[in-house]
């Protein structure tokens, strides 16, 4: 299925990441968004609120992020594709509903334009400190999918992809932007609608009465139904059986939680997106994501000019973590260098996956700006033993 041309602003534009993200949402089929203003994410819904009435859909500004993050889920069950956007403190407030979406298998997208924290932190300045919050922020054990764009162009393409992955796996998907990417303006090419693939919602073809909302299916992603169609189904955040009824037994919990995890694990090949640059034969590989990988590329060039064989690996999907790729890489290099705008979050994952096979050198940064490429260069030199 391809995108509905009504929502696709085909052409070449000069947009910031936030604006491009909004266009991605529209191209991906989003016709509902609920939001609460917070810097630096606000431009996404500002644009959506302007665009959506002429496309056919609804934007509502809610009273807080808790409301926004669950209103979109109501809209999903009513038949719309929906997303919300936020930043730092708002992301914290949305955590409970990320768990609800995971538990009820509600396809929706959460965009977090990361800013410096903790707390109010740096409203207008960048960080990548929410990576672990995206992964583990809501209580309970659930998997998630998180994508990290590093340009406005990618804010568009990855937002479309996020909307699609949400539908394919019936799970909340995160677009983990950062303030730099969100506020950076660049050329964004939006292709014609017919070339943009859009994943339709997986709906049941069963008759009311035969429909079991959470039944096992081959890919572990049960087809859903929308309210108002006569299925009279029940959805609950409680642990539930195949009928969707609360069933708080060890067996039901084990079955449900395992399936939620397994559906993502099984889909790893379709979810994982990693970009490699001269990784073969590299002594050192820089592993990073988002804006930091762009900055790191400058350091990589500088290191190559010094004769160091450096490769780069950009994690476009950070969650689920490309565990095997990192593990395989770790066995072939002298060091992995992990710059990120936090004190070492994804570096922990890299370290875990390297399983001691190589040296892991984090390049932490507290945020408020991006790395000085020199810091990354120094780490590369260290990894190469220079």
């Amino acid at each position, binding site marked *: 299925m391809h995108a509905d041309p009504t929502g696709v602003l085909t052409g070449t534009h000069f947009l910031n990441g936030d604006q491009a993200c909004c266009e991605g949402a529209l191209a991906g089929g989003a016709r509902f968004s609920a939001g609460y203003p917070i810097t630096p994410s606000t431009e996404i819904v500002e644009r959506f609120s302007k665009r959506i009435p002429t496309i056919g859909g609804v934007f509502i500004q809610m009273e807080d992020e808790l409301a926004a993050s669950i209103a979109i889920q109501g809209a999903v069950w009513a038949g719309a594709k929906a997303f919300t956007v936020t930043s730092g403190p708002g992301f914290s407030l949305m955590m409970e509903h990320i768990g609800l979406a995971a538990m009820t298998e509600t396809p929706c997208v959460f965009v977090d334009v990361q800013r410096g924290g903790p707390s109010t932190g740096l409203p207008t300045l960048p960080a990548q400190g929410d990576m672990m919050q995206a992964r583990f922020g809501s209580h309970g054990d659930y998997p998630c999918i998180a994508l990290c764009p590093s340009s406005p162009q990618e804010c568009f393409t990855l937002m479309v992809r996020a909307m699609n992955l949400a539908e394919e796996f019936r799970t909340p998907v995160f677009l983990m932007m950062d303030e730099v990417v969100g506020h950076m303006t*660049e050329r964004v090419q939006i292709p014609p609608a017919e070339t943009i693939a859009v994943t339709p919602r997986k709906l049941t073809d069963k008759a009311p009465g035969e429909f079991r909302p959470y039944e096992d299916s081959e890919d572990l992603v049960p087809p859903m139904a929308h309210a108002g169609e006569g299925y009279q189904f029940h959805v609950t955040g409680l642990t539930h059986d195949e009928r969707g009824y609360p069933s708080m037994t060890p067996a039901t919990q084990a079955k449900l939680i395992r399936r939620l995890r397994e559906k993502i694990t099984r889909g790893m090949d379709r979810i994982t997106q990693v970009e490699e640059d001269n990784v073969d034969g590299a002594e050192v590989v820089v592993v990073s994501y988002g804006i930091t990988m762009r900055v790191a590329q400058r350091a990589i*060039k*500088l290191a190559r000019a010094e004769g160091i064989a450096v490769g780069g690996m950009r994690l476009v999907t950070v969650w689920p973590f490309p565990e095997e790729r990192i593990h395989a890489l770790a066995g072939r290099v002298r060091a992995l260098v992990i710059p990120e705008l936090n004190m070492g979050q994804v570096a922990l994952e890299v370290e875990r996956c390297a399983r001691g096979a190589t040296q892991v050198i984090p390049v932490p940064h507290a945020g408020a700006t991006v790395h000085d490429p020199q810091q990354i260069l120094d780490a590369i030199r260290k990894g190469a033993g220079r």
Partner: protein
Amino acid sequence: MPELASRREVAAAPDAVERELTEIRVAGFGGQGVILAAQILGKAAAIFDGVHATMTQNFGPEARGGACSAQLIVARHPVLYPYVTKADILVAMSQEAFGKFVPELKQGGLLLVERDLVRIQQDLPERVRTYGVPATRIAEKLGKRVVQNIVMLGFFGAVTEVVSRKAMEQAVLSSVPASMAALNKDALQAGYEVGRACLESRLPASECDQIPEYAAWLD
């Protein structure tokens, strides 16, 4: 396509590997249209000239009163590092912006100022060339003070080679409401004319007042 960075010497390592880019800072105070100017400039480069441009703006309380600025990197290749490290060009629309950003201007760089609002009271980095334009005055004479940023863009277009004239015009017209097209076109034209006259006269900025095309706007 104009030759980028043609005016500049190749900077010293470590950033020599990426020298095919131009780093521009546009700064002023809130209400001068500084961000829009940078946006239009970036659009001219990225959309109409087909090179790469990355624009970032400084947000926050300072954007509502004091110094407000935008950064633009124009390059032949995709821009990696999004911020100005050493500005090739500083466009200063206010005294405060000038004071704040002149230290990041590189040696041999280009300084464009709002002639009536910026007084160059401090030492500039070596070999910096300065050009001034009475952008606000010209805009007022054209009828609306708000087009001061467009006048500055015209001036910028004339004294630098970052974007083509055609791209600049397309970028301006695609960024302003249709009802304001004529005024913006005039503002851009005026800026270009003053800039070209200034450049062709080969006079130092402080003596540009003597040029008839320039002086015409000052009385």
